[in-house]
C-alpha cells in the first residue's frame, strides 16, 4: 500500500521561497502569477493492508515528524 503526504505551509505563514519563485516567473515573462506557495510531497511504501489503519498510522507520522504543525498543514492520501 502506498501513502502520499502533502505538506504545505499554513495559510498566513510567509513563504519566502514561494515568493522568490513567483518573482522569477514574472522576470521570465509569465505574467499573471499572483502567488506561489511551495510545499513537499512525501511518498511512503507501507506493509499495511488495512486502509483505515494505514491512514491513522501515517497521520501519526505527520504529527510526530513529517510536518511541523506549528507552521505546516498536511493531507494524507492512501492508494
Amino acid at each position, binding site marked *: 500500500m502506498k501513502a502520499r503526504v502533502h505538506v504545505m505551509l499554513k495559510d498566513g505563514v510567509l513563504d*519566502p521561497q514561494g515568493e522568490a519563485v513567483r518573482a522569477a516567473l514574472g522576470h521570465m515573462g509569465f505574467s499573471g502569477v499572483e502567488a506561489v506557495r511551495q510545499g513537499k510531497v512525501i511518498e511512503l511504501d507501507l506493509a499495511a493492508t488495512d486502509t483505515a489503519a494505514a491512514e491513522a498510522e501515517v497521520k501519526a507520522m505527520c504529527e510526530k*515528524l513529517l510536518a*511541523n504543525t506549528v507552521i505546516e498543514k498536511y493531507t494524507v492520501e492512501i492508494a
Partner: protein
Amino acid sequence: MKAAVITFPGSNCDRDLFDAFAKAGDEVVKVWHKETELPAGIDVIGIPGGFSFGDYLRCGAIASRSPIGQAVVDFAQRGGYVLGVCNGFQVLTEMGLLPGALMRNAGLKFISKPVALTVTTTDSAFTSGYDKGQEILIPIAHAEGNYQIDAEGLKQLQGEDRVAFRYVENPNGATDDIAGVLSANRRVLGMMPHPERVVEPAQGGTDGAALFRALSSVMAAA
C-alpha cells in the same frame, strides 16, 4: 558545573561550544547523538550549531527525534538547563521545548556577519551577566533564522519577559526582531547568534563570554 555538548552528524559548532563552556571553568563532556542517556551529574546541555542531518526534512527535525533527543526533552522537563545555538535553537523548537519556528530568512540568503543585539531580559541564568538593554556584538551564520510565532504566542513571550535578545537591525525578518527566546521556566534558551564564537579576543570579540560565565556562576551557587 558539568556541561554536555551533543554532537549530531552535521554539527559543526560543537567544538566551539565545548571550548566556550570549558573556558568558563566548566567540566564538559561530549555526547554522541546515538546515546540514549546523558552522563550522570549533568547541569546543562549545549546543542550546537551546524547542519544536523543535512537539514533534511526541516532544520533540526531529525536531530530532535534522534535517540539522545528524548533524553534532552526529559532533562529539560525535569528542570534542567539547555542552551541551543543556531541549529540548536531549531532543534529546541522542533522538540517543542521552545515555542515558534525558524523559517527561511526573508531575503533568502545565508547571512554570516556580526550583528548587534539588545539584551532584552537579565532575568535568566544565561543573561544575568549582562545589563538590561545592553548592546552586544555576536555573529550570526544562518539561512533559516527567521523566527516566527503566532500573535498569541508572541504576546505570551512578551508578557512573560521571555525574549532574551533582540536584533538591533533585523537581518532575517524575525517576528518582533527576536534573536533568542526562553522557556516558561527560563531554563531553556534558544538563540540564532553564536555566543560561543566570541568568548576570547583571538576570536575578534568577547561579548559572548558573559553568557557562559553567568551560567557557570548560577550553577555554582545552586
